[in-house]
């Protein structure tokens, strides 16, 4: 027997209360892990962004286009190894107009060379390049659209009116977590040739692959300087910066999630604090007995804090054990398939697990400090008097 085992046994003493507390804290931890995972999963795009890519768009607005000749200029900038371009197409599936997925018209010659994390079998790439109406879709999107290689798919344009027919020539998978597996890409030429003369030869944005990732900022500035005297000016930034600025649009939402996370922790603290305070109150006479036997106030504090640590550990393990099935297999699957654009990889980060566990124990200790301090301050005779 030792102090720790005495603390552990006291935790198990009021079984109903311990089970309820563990359950309550576990639920709070699941909610906490869920919210933190929303934040980390959202940040995945930033964390895993390619370091050697620089994107360029219209300076004033992302909805405005660049002249196609800009791509040649960009390819000539020193440090740029390869460059490609794409246009936002914004079409939707007429069978399911409310479900959103990204679809781009891309330069079929160069796009997959720059975005090499999109993995397509070489034979399929060749077939796609050869077919003007060919399209490649992500595996997640293929599942939700119910299409396979060789199928025909009709999309309804919103920016570019009409029905657009595509042949699915390949399915891409991802080598990196940050890749949205719910995209559709097709030949830019197909779009361009369908447009009236006045709207032709416009590109949405370009993406350049550079030799030296550390020079991303420098090369971005070099590109923008090139077009400074032109009528249409550009804004270039590294992919990481681009993703960061996309995240910045949602910073209030992320702040809200942070605040809710903190409230969850406060609830957790109240739950643990309540249970510990109750246990301490019921056992005050025992602390009196211990003191009468010669134990010191600090021993009493150790007993109570020890109990809290044990309770926090049990609850933390239960919460994390519950989080994995709920977050990864329940919600994670759903979000990856339905909101792949935001959450391409919705999994619990190890750091989240460690943080949740640490917080459960830490908050247990914090919750026990006041009752422990109060119990240790009682005189022996006062504590003993609460005998009956």
């Amino acid at each position: 027997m030792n102090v720790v085992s005495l603390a552990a046994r006291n935790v198990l003493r009021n079984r109903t209360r311990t089970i309820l507390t563990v359950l309550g804290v576990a639920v709070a931890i699941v909610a906490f892990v869920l919210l933190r995972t929303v934040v980390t999963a959202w940040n995945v795009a930033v964390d895993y962004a390619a370091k050697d890519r620089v994107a360029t768009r219209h300076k004033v607005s992302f909805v405005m286009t660049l002249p196609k000749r800009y791509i040649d200029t960009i390819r000539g900038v020193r440090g740029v190894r390869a460059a490609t371009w794409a246009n936002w197409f914004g079409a939707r599936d007429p069978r399911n107009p409310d479900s959103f997925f990204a679809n781009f018209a891309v330069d079929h010659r160069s796009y997959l060379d720059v975005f090499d994390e999109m993995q397509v079998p070489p034979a399929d790439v060749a077939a796609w390049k050869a077919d003007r109406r060919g399209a490649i879709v992500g595996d997640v999107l293929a599942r939700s659209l119910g299409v396979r290689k060789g199928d025909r798919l009709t999309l309804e344009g919103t920016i570019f009116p009409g029905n657009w027919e595509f042949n699915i020539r390949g399915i891409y998978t991802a080598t990196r977590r940050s890749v949205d597996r719910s995209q559709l890409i097709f030949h830019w030429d197909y779009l361009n040739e369908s447009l009236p003369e006045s709207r032709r030869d416009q590109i949405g944005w370009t993406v350049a692959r550079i030799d030296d990732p550390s020079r991303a900022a420098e090369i971005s500035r070099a590109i923008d300087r090139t077009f400074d005297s032109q009528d249409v000016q550009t804004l270039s930034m590294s992919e990481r910066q681009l993703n960061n600025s996309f995240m910045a649009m949602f910073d209030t939402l992320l702040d809200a999630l942070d605040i809710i996370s903190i409230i969850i922790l406060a609830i957790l603290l109240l739950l643990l604090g309540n249970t510990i305070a109750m246990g301490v109150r019921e056992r005050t006479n025992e602390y009196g007995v211990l003191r009468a036997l010669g134990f010191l106030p600090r021993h009493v504090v150790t007993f109570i804090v020890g109990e809290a640590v044990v309770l926090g550990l049990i609850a933390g393990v239960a919460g994390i054990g519950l989080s994995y099935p709920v977050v990864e297999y329940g919600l994670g699957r759903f979000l990856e398939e339905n909101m792949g654009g935001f959450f391409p990889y919705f999994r619990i980060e190890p750091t989240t697990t460690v943080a949740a566990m640490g917080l459960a124990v830490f908050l247990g200790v914090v919750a026990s400090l006041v009752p422990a301090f109060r119990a240790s301050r009682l005189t022996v005779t006062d504590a003993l008097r609460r005998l009956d």
Partner: protein
Amino acid sequence: MVPIVYNLRSLAVRKTTTLATAGGVALVVFVFAAVLMLSEGVKRTLGRSGSDDIAIVLRDGSDAELSSGIEAPQIALITAPSEVKRRGGGAPDAAAEIVAVLSLDKVGTDGQSNAQIRGVPDDVMSFRPSVRLVAGRVPRPGADEAMIGNAIRGRFRGLDMGQSFEIRKNRNLTVVGVFEDGGSSYESEIWAGRDQVQSALGRGTVVSSVRVRLRSRDVFERYQRQLQSNRQLGVDVMRESDYYAKQSEGLSIFINALGILVAFFFSVGAVIGAMITMHASVANRSREIGTLRALGFKRWQILLCFLLESSILALVGGLLGAAASLSMALVRFPMVNFASWSEIVFTFEPTPGVIIASLVVAVLMGLVGGFLPAVRAARADVLSAIRA
């Protein structure tokens, strides 16, 4: 009936526990109320923007003003039908506008975000009489001037009285006025002369949408039929209120899903907290319960007594939480509208319905949490309760 005073004093005696539990409920109700208030705020902001005697005309197939384009000659055809209200001089009460998105530096961050810019006709104030200037003046026709909604004032670099922002190379618009529109989403927009916006963005004479005020809300169907049957025109006609409801759909679903998820986890936590407290309360008072039973109180009266006590406990928390949530009315919550990728500033709208719903939820949590302990109390045997 056991007098309520008994419950109130019992709660008062166990101060710490009562406060911890009520505090937990308060936090849950706070978050719950805040989510409901935000949901109300979204409804108000986007609902205010639309009225049902106004029809909005977009190009066929485009689901938002941003992706729509209508050629200038078509405007006259759209405003010609007799269902359209006339102004004094016989001109149609209508507004043809162009909408785009500007990327601007966000104040307080190093990122950019998007703001919607609307090129409006010179007589926009007579088409939208609810819009009211709170500072400065209306832009002079033909001048490179703009007015901005009150909600985005100061949120982006260049968006405040006397400041200016770039809309095209070497072409800045100066902010000369700030307007309000009862909290509608227009307050998150930049308004400038239509010709200025069209020329600066190189869009020729194309507009995004045409709004017409109808003679009455009842003639909408006739007007819609008339325009949509004209294949040459190729337009979609919607009630403005329906259009905004559809614009906010994604956002509403998102907020509600998040709210439901958070509310679910949180209420489970609060219910468990109430259960722990009531469980301990019943256990500590077995002697009292036995006495009450010995005095002749029936089992159902004991049950009711404890259910009442836990409801009061939860109601105290509910009142605290609801009161705290009122402070959210001061918070502005900018969110990216998924339909336009531009920011709209929402507020938290504390309606009586929200407060009542929060309190009802609090009491429900108390009842659910108190049920099992109350049953236990009611089932206690008189003799063993007294002996304990």
